[in-house]
C-alpha cells in the first residue's frame, strides 16, 4: 500500500496523512505521548518533571518579551527594567512572572531531584536520564545566575563579582580566567553584555538537553514509586489520557501557587538591595545569593581555604554524575530500604540546614553548623550510599505493580500510608 519511500500511517485526515508519510511527527507523538506505556502507580511527585517543562516554556515566553524592552548596558539596564515595571503595558506582570518563575523553577527541580533520590530513579537502566538531568541542573543554575545579574541592582553586581571571583581560586590560571570571564578588570559593561547574550542562549540549550532527557526516559521507561520493573501491559496505562489529565491537575495547583506569588507576594523571595542600582564603590553589608544557591554558598564558606571551598562547592553537584555507581543497593525505592529511607530524610534536612546556614553571616554557631552539614553531605554521598547498599536488608519487594496496587503482593502498610494522595 505504501508507495516507495513513503511512511505508512493510519491517520484519516488527508493533510495529516500526507505530512506523516513524509515526516512521521504525528506517528511519533502518537507513540510517545498517547500510547507510551506508563506505570499505573505514579503518585503526584511524578508531576514535577512536567511542571518544570511548563515552567521552562513560561520563562522563555516571558523572557522574550522582557528582552524586547531591556537595555543591556550598565548605564541603562536598571532604568530599563524599571521602565518595564512602570510604563510597558503589563510589563510589571511579565517581569514578576519571570522573576518568581526563576524561584519556582528551582522549587520544582529540587523536588524532582529529591523524588529521584528517594525512589532510586537514577539506577540502572536510568543512569543516562539522571546524568542528563544533572547537565540540565548545571545549565539551569548558570542561566539563573546570569539572569539575576541583568537588572543591575546592588545584589546583581556584587553577586556577579563574588561568583566570578570563585574562578580566581584556580591555581596559576585563575586570575587570567576571571579577567577573561569579565571581559575586563572588573564586572562592567562587557560582562553585562555577555551575560545577557548567554542568558538568552542557554534556555534553548536547556530545551535541547530536555529533549534528550525525555528521549532517554522514553527509551527505558519511567521508574515508579515501587521501584520495580514493569512486567507487562497489566502494569501500565497509556500516557494519554491518564497521565495528561493527572499532570493537568498538578499544573493547575502549580499555577495557583505561581499566581499567589506573582500577584500578592512578588517581592517575597527578592533581596531589597536589588532595588538599589549597582554601585561598584559601595559594597552591601551582606552579599547573599538567591535562596536556591544558599546550600552551595554554605558549602563554599564552610571551608577555610578558598580553593578547597570552590572544589567542594562544584564537587557537591558534580558528584551527582556518579551517583548511579555510588549507590550499591539493587533495590530502587526507599520504601523497601529501611535504613536508606531515614538517611534520605536526614539528607533532606541536611540540605535545608545548609540553606539556613547560607542565609546567615558565617559567625559563631553557623560556622560549626555549616561544617557539620557539609561533611554530612559528602559522607552521605561517599560513605552511606556505597556502604548501606551492602549492609542493609531490604524489605521483600512486591511481585508486580498490578498485584501491589490491587492490594495483593507484599505491600508493607507503611508504603500504603505514604501515598494518601493516590486514593483519588
Amino acid at each position, binding site marked *: 500500500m505504501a508507495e516507495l519511500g513513503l511512511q505508512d500511517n493510519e491517520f484519516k485526515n488527508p493533510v495529516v496523512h500526507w505530512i506523516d508519510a513524509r515526516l512521521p511527527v504525528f506517528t511519533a507523538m502518537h507513540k510517545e505521548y498517547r500510547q507510551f506505556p506508563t506505570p499505573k502507580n505514579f503518585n503526584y511527585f511524578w508531576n514535577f518533571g512536567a511542571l518544570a517543562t511548563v515552567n521552562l516554556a513560561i520563562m522563555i515566553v516571558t523572557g522574550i518579551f522582557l528582552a524586547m524592552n531591556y537595555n543591556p548596558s550598565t548605564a541603562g539596564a536598571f532604568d530599563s527594567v524599571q521602565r518595564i*515595571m*512602570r510604563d510597558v503595558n503589563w510589563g*510589571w506582570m511579565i517581569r514578576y512572572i519571570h522573576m518568581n518563575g526563576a524561584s519556582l523553577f528551582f522549587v520544582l527541580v529540587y523536588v524532582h531531584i529529591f523524588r529521584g533520590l528517594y525512589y532510586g530513579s537514577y539506577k540502572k537502566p536510568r543512569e543516562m536520564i539522571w546524568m542528563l538531568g544533572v547537565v540540565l541542573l548545571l545549565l539551569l543554575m548558570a542561566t539563573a545566575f546570569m539572569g539575576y545579574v541583568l537588572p543591575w541592582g546592588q545584589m546583581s553586581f556584587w553577586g556577579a563579582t563574588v561568583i566570578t571571583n570563585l574562578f580566581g581560586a584556580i591555581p596559576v590560571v585563575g586570575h587570567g580566567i576571571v579577567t577573561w570571564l569579565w571581559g575586563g578588570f572588573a564586572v562592567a559593561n562587557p560582562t553585562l553584555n555577555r551575560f545577557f547574550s548567554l542568558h538568552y542562549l542557554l534556555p534553548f540549550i536547556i530545551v535541547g538537553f530536555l529533549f534528550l532527557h525525555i528521549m532517554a526516559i522514553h527509551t527505558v521507561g519511567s521508574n515508579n514509586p515501587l521501584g520495580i520493573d514493569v512486567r507487562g501491559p497489566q502494569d501500565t496505562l497509556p500516557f494519554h489520557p491518564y497521565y495528561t489529565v*493527572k499532570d493537568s*491537575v498538578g499544573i*493547575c*495547583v502549580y499555577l495557583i501557587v505561581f499566581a499567589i506569588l506573582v500577584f500578592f507576594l512578588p517581592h517575597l523571595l527578592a533581596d531589597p538591595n536589588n532595588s538599589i542600582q549597582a554601585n561598584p564603590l559601595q559594597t552591601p553589608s551582606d552579599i547573599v545569593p538567591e535562596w536556591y544557591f544558599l546550600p552551595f554558598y554554605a558549602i563554599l564558606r564552610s571551608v577555610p581555604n578558598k580553593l578547597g571551598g570552590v572544589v567542594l562547592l562544584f564537587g557537591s553537584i558534580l558528584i551527582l554524575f556518579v551517583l548511579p555507581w555510588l549507590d550499591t543497593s539493587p533495590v530502587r525505592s526507599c520504601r523497601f530500604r529501611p535504613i536508606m529511607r531515614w538517611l534520605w530524610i536526614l539528607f533532606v534536612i541536611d540540605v535545608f540546614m545548609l540553606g539556613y546556614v547560607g542565609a546567615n553571616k558565617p559567625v559563631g554557631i553557623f560556622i560549626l553548623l555549616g561544617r557539620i552539614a557539609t561533611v554530612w553531605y559528602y559522607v552521605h554521598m561517599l560513605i552511606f550510599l556505597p556502604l548501606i547498599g551492602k549492609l542493609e536488608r531490604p524489605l521483600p519487594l512486591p511481585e508486580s505493580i498490578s498485584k501491589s496496587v490491587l492490594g495483593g503482593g507484599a505491600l508493607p502498610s507503611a508504603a500504603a500510608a505514604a501515598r494518601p494522595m493516590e486514593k483519588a
Partner: protein
Amino acid sequence: MRTLSLAAAVVVLGLAFSVLRVAAQETPPLPRVFWSFEGPFGTIDRAAAQRGYQVYKQVCSACHSMNLFHFRDLAGIGYTPEQITAIAASVQVPGPPNAQGQSSPISGKPADAFPSPFPTEAAAKAAFNGAVPPDMSLMANAFVGGPSYIYGILNGFRNPPSGVAVPPGRYYNIYFPGNFIAMPPPLHDSAVTYADGTPATVPQMAHDVATFLYFVANPHVDQRKRIGAHVVLFLVFITGLTYALKRKVWSEVEH
C-alpha cells in the same frame, strides 16, 4: 508518630535559630505600623498618599530626587489630569538646548520625571559631607521592612546616649544601621499644613510620606491585587474541574 517527632524536632531547631538571629541584631525591631495596602486585599489609602505627596514636595524634594516617577503617575493616587498639569507646570525641569547649546530650565509637563534638586551627583555629595541623598523612586522596596523602615527612620531621631560621640555632619537615629545618619531630622510638628486639615504631627507625616513612597515604588499594586484575586479564583475553579475530570478518567482503571 515518627512524623510527629520529626516535625517537633524541626520546630525546636527553628525556634533555637530564630533566637540566635534576634541576638545578632543591632537596631531595635521596627515599629509595628498599620498600612492600608497590607494583605491580599489592602489598597493604597489615596488621602494619605496625597498628604504624603505634599510632604515629599515641601520637605523631601529639597534634597531627594525621584527620577523614575513621572508627574502623570500621580493619577494613580487620585489627582485629575488638570491638577497634574498644574503640578508639573509649577516645577522647573531642565529644558532642551537652544541654538547656542545653552539649556535653561522650563516648566514641567505631565510626562516629565520629578527633577533632581542638585545639578550633579557631585554637587549633592558636596552639600552632605559625601553622602548623596538617595533617589526616592524605589526607596520603599529597597530596605528590609519597606515603608515601616522609612517610618522608623523618620521617627527614630534621638539624643545620643551618654558616652556616644556623634561624628560631625551625622545625626543619631535608633533605626539606622550603625546609628549615625547623614540626614538631619527632616520633620518637625506642623512642618506642612495639610489641605484636608489633618494635624501634621511627625508620626502622621512619616506615615503619610511612607504610604506615598510605597505607591511610588509600586504604582501598579492596587491593579495587581485586583487582577490577582480574579486569576486565583479562576484557577481554583479550573483546578476543581480538572480534578473532577481526572477522577472520571481514572475511575475506569483499578489503581
